[in-house]
C-alpha cells in the first residue's frame, strides 16, 4: 500500500499526463497509419519506402522523455532511492513507448517489432540528453535533427549500394542483434546520465 502511494506521488510530481497523452497519440497513429509508407521527402526518394511505424518512435521517444521530467524546481534531497526510482520510472516509460509504437503491428506487417523497438530505444536515449541538462523543452531537437539527417544523407548517392549507412540505422526495416545491443547501450548511457543528473535546474 505504501509502495502504491509512493508510486502515485512520484507520478503526480512528474509530467505523467503529458507523457500519456503523447503515447496515446502515438498508439492511435500507429493503428491508423500502420500500412502507410513514405517513399521519400521532397525530391529525395528513399532506398525503399519507409514504414510510418519506423518514424512514430521519434514521437514516442520524446513523449517518454517528457514524462521523465519533474514538475517541480525545488532543491530537495536526492537520495539513492530517488536514483533507483528515476531509473525504474524511465524504464517503465521505455516499455510503454515500445508498446505504443508497436500497436500498429496488430494489423500490419510492414516492419518488425524489433526494428520499431530499436528506434524507440534510440530516440528515447537521444531525448534524455536535453532533459538531463535542464532543457526539457528541447527534448525533440536531437530526435528530429537525427531523423531528418538520416533521411536526407543516410545513404550513398549511387544505387549500387542498397543500404543505409550504419549511423542511419533508424531507416532500416529490419533489425539485427548488433543494432539492438548498440541501441540498448545508448539507452543505458542516456539513462545513467538522466539518473545521476535529472536536470533539476530546468528551463522549460
Amino acid at each position, binding site marked *: 500500500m505504501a509502495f502504491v502511494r509512493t508510486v502515485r506521488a512520484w507520478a503526480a510530481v512528474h509530467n505523467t499526463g503529458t507523457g500519456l497523452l503523447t503515447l496515446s497519440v502515438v498508439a492511435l497513429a500507429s493503428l491508423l497509419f500502420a500500412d502507410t509508407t513514405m*517513399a521519400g521527402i521532397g525530391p529525395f*526518394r528513399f532506398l525503399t519506402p519507409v514504414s510510418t511505424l519506423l518514424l512514430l518512435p521519434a*514521437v514516442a521517444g520524446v*513523449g517518454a522523455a*517528457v514524462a521523465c521530467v519533474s514538475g517541480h524546481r525545488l532543491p530537495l534531497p536526492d537520495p539513492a532511492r530517488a536514483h533507483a526510482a528515476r531509473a525504474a520510472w524511465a524504464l517503465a516509460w521505455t516499455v510503454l513507448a515500445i508498446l505504443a509504437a508497436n500497436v500498429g503491428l496488430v494489423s500490419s506487417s510492414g516492419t518488425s517489432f524489433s526494428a520499431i523497438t530499436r528506434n524507440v530505444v534510440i530516440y528515447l536515449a537521444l531525448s534524455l540528453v536535453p532533459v538531463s541538462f535542464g532543457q526539457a523543452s528541447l*527534448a525533440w531537437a536531437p530526435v528530429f535533427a537525427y531523423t531528418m*539527417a538520416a533521411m*536526407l544523407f543516410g545513404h550513398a548517392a549511387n544505387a549500387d549500394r542498397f543500404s543505409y549507412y550504419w549511423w542511419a540505422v533508424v531507416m532500416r526495416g529490419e533489425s539485427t542483434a548488433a543494432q539492438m545491443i548498440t541501441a540498448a547501450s545508448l539507452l543505458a548511457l542516456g539513462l545513467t546520465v538522466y539518473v545521476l543528473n535529472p536536470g533539476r535546474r530546468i528551463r522549460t
Partner: protein
Amino acid sequence: MSRARFALSTLAGPWLLLPALGIEIATFLVRGMPWRGEGMWTVDWFAISLYLVGPLAAGAAAVDASRLSRPGNLHLVVGVPRSWRVYARAAAWSAIPLMVLHLVTIVVALLVGDVRQPGAGWLMMSVAAVVQCFAILWFVALGSAIGRFVNPLLAGLAGAAAGYVLNYLVSDALDGEPRFRLLALGAATVTLVGRGYNPGYLVGQLAVLGITSALFVVVAMRVRSGVRLPSAAGAVAAAISVVMIAFAPAVLPDDRRIADPRPPGHCLGEGPEICFYYEHRRYAELIEPRIRTLTDAALEKGYPAFVPERIMEVSHGYRPDPAEARPLWLPSQVYEEGRYTLEDAAYDLLLPAHCEFLNGPALTPEGYDEVFFSLLGTWLEIAGAKLVDAPVEHRTLTPAEVSRALDGLAACEVRK
C-alpha cells in the same frame, strides 16, 4: 545587456544558427557538389538544407512562443497593444539569422562554383533564393503560431512535427502530376542546364509564403479560465492561411521549371566544332581530348563518316537537329566522378537518342544492336581501344558500311 545577448539568453531560436551552419556545410560537402558551375543547380541544391532546417526552426520557434505564453510571462504578451508584435520579435530572432546564413551560403557556393553566365539568369536565381528564405520565415511563423497554445514541453515536438508533415505534403512530391507546391524549393539532384525558372511560380510562392507567414504571426490569443485559445481574429487568420495554401495549386502555375531552348555557346576547335554550355565549360578539358582522339583517328584511318561538322551538348531544353550537329549528352559520371572514357565518348556520339524506339514503348528494330555495337567497336578499334562489353556479336565495318549505317540511324532505320 544588449538585445542580442538578451535574445540569446532567453530564446531557443537564435541558437539554431549553430546546427544550421553545420547543415549548410554538410550540404556543401555531400556528393561533392557535382553540378557546381551551374547557377540554377547551385541555388536549388541548397534547398536541401531546408528540409532539415525548416522543421527544426518550426520547433525552436514553437518553444519560444510557448515560453512567452506560459503563466508568469503571458501578461507581457496579452497585456500590451498589438500583442502579436511580441511573438513577431521572438520569431524574427529565429528567422533572420537563418535567412542571412542561407543567403550567404548560396553566394559562397556560387563563388566556389565560379558561376558567371547562368542560363537561368541572375534575377530569377535571386528570386529563387529569396523564396527559400521566405520558406525559412514560414516555418518559423508556423512554429510560433503553434507554440502559443501548447505547453513548453510539447511545443517543440508539435512545431517540428507540423513542419515535417507539411514539408512532406506541400513540397515536391515524388508522385502525381506537376502542380503548384508551396514548399517546392528546388533540391536539385541532376543537371539543370536547359531549364529556367517559371517566374509566375516563384512569385506565387513568394506571395503565399509571405502572406501566410504574416497571418501566422498575427494569430492573437485570448485566455479563458487559464486556457489559451485563438481569438476570433486569430482563428480567421489561421483559416485564411489554410485556405490559401489549399487553393493555391488551383490558381498558380504547375511547373516550377520551364524549358530553356537556347543552344550551347561555348564552342571549341573545328573539324568538328564542339560546343558546350558555358556553365559546363570546366568539363571541356575532360571531354574534348577524348572526342578529338576519336575524330582524329577516324579521319586518319579513312572513316570520315564518323566525324560530324559540329557536336552540340544536349540539355533539358535543347537538342540539335541531327542533320546539323551530332548531339552530346554528358553522362552523370562526368559530374560525379570526373570520368569520361573513349568508349563513353563514342557511345554518346553514336547513340540515336532522337529515335522513338529508344525513348518510348516501341521495340528497337531488328538488327539494331548488331549495327550499333559494330559501329562502336569499329570506332574504338581504329582509335586504338577495344570494346570491352557488348551484348551481341559485332564486327569491324568498312568506311562505306559505317556511312550507310550512320545515315540509317539518323533516319531511325537499321541499314546493314
